[in-house]
């Protein structure tokens, strides 16, 4: 088994800066944006991107967390998962553009669950998807709008995103 690092701290920072600019560009400014991270690391990334978008755009952008555990389609195939808190900013999501933020995009099933969860909370005017790593192997017709790094990988390889706030280190590694 071998592990190699594909993104270092500076690479992650650059990727998040670029994603933040791209979000502002596609939304034509920071108005009406709500960033929702998918726990655990998506929440951390959403907070970082939210701070950057706020800096570049000039106004603070609401950031929250959206737990998708209750909406997963593989619950009965795995040991019981403990849900994480969902935290919807007080402005709500009705009529806003929601940017979902996740660390790794793989099968697309988490995002499918997130879309179902969003539907129970409100009706955004648009939903976008930002991901730090897109490793391919989609099982559903879902594609990201903002990607930090496209990372071609074999299905049996494992992609690990580690962030300072959660893991104490800052890197993306691939295990094969």
């Amino acid at each position: 088994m071998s592990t190699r690092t594909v993104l270092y701290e500076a690479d992650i920072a650059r990727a998040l800066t670029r994603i933040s600019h791209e979000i502002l560009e596609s939304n034509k400014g920071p108005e009406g944006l709500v960033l929702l991270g998918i726990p655990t690391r998506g929440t951390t990334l959403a907070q970082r991107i939210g701070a950057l978008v706020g800096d570049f755009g000039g106004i603070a952008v609401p950031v929250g967390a959206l737990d998708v555990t209750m909406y997963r389609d593989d619950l009965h195939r795995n040991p019981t998962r403990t849900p994480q808190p969902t935290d919807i900013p007080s402005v709500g999501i009705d009529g806003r553009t929601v940017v979902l933020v996740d660390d790794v995009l793989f099968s697309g099933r988490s995002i499918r669950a997130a879309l179902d969860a969003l539907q129970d909370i409100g009706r955004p005017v648009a939903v976008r998807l930002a991901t730090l790593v897109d490793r391919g192997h989609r099982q559903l017709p879902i594609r990201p709008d903002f990607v930090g790094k496209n990372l071609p990988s074999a299905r049996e390889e494992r992609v690990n995103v580690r962030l300072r706030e959660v893991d104490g280190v800052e890197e993306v590694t691939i295990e094969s």
Partner: protein
Amino acid sequence: MRHLLDTRTLSREDALRILDVAEDMADTQRREVKKLPTLRGKTVVNLFFEDSTRTRISFEAAAKRLSADVINFSAKGSSVSKGESLQDTAQTLQAMGADAVVIRHGASGAPRTLATSGWISAGVVNAGDGTHEHPTQALLDAFTIRKRRFGADSRGRDLAGIRVTIVGDVLHSRVARSNVWLLTTLGAHVTLVSPPTLVPQDVSRWPVEVLYGLDEALAREPDAVMMLRIQLERMNAAYFPTEREYSRIWGLDARRASALPADTMVLHPGPMNRGLEISAEAADSARSTVLEQVANGVSVRMAALYLLLAGAGPDDRNAADEESPR
């Protein structure tokens, strides 16, 4: 978690897990759409051999909010009144494909019998058995105390240092038993106040302090006071002279309630005998958590059903080897 039968054997870790998942469930109950798709296709049977309104509808609401199908089975007017045994009833439910059985039974230990007999493969939740335990009630009480005390900061916290006084008919109360075990597991200090005739014989082995005077206990300014219902239906002997005398000595009347510190909460598992163990003034005051307990009951039962039913069952453990995609 396979079954939820009692709080005596529930570990601190498992108890906190249920309470924390209940926090997430409570969050979803404030949304416009309260229903989650999580237990779609699962069947929950409410098997009630004893009368109950609030516990049954609370479990029913919890199961329905998680999209499970609910079958209500009450012993009255059923095959049980024709003499069917628990074994035959259980096997009938098994044949119908029940995934979880919520059971209330007059006999202490009936849920454990059901869970360990091999008659059914469903998860079993004890919704009150005889004078033994009522674990989900204790969990919702602990949840309510934690929520009142810590508010939005409740997740992950136990009840260390919190002093809870439980007042009334401890002898017949499964609610008191479940609370004693759970609250002490979570680090709270529990005091029981009861007429000497309504104290269980084995109480010296419980991790609690026992007092006989309510005024003495309330003078210590507990963080929470839990009033137990006087269970007239279980009283087949004279445990106290008259209801009026009980109310005067052990009832939480307006005078006693108003003398409590402002942040002391008053819990009651319901249904209340107003004017007997609790006065209307105390029951309707801001310190009363009675309605919060009802709302929290649904969240706690959703958490219990989720933890019992959502994961891989014992039959498909190997499915877990298939690492979730990352």
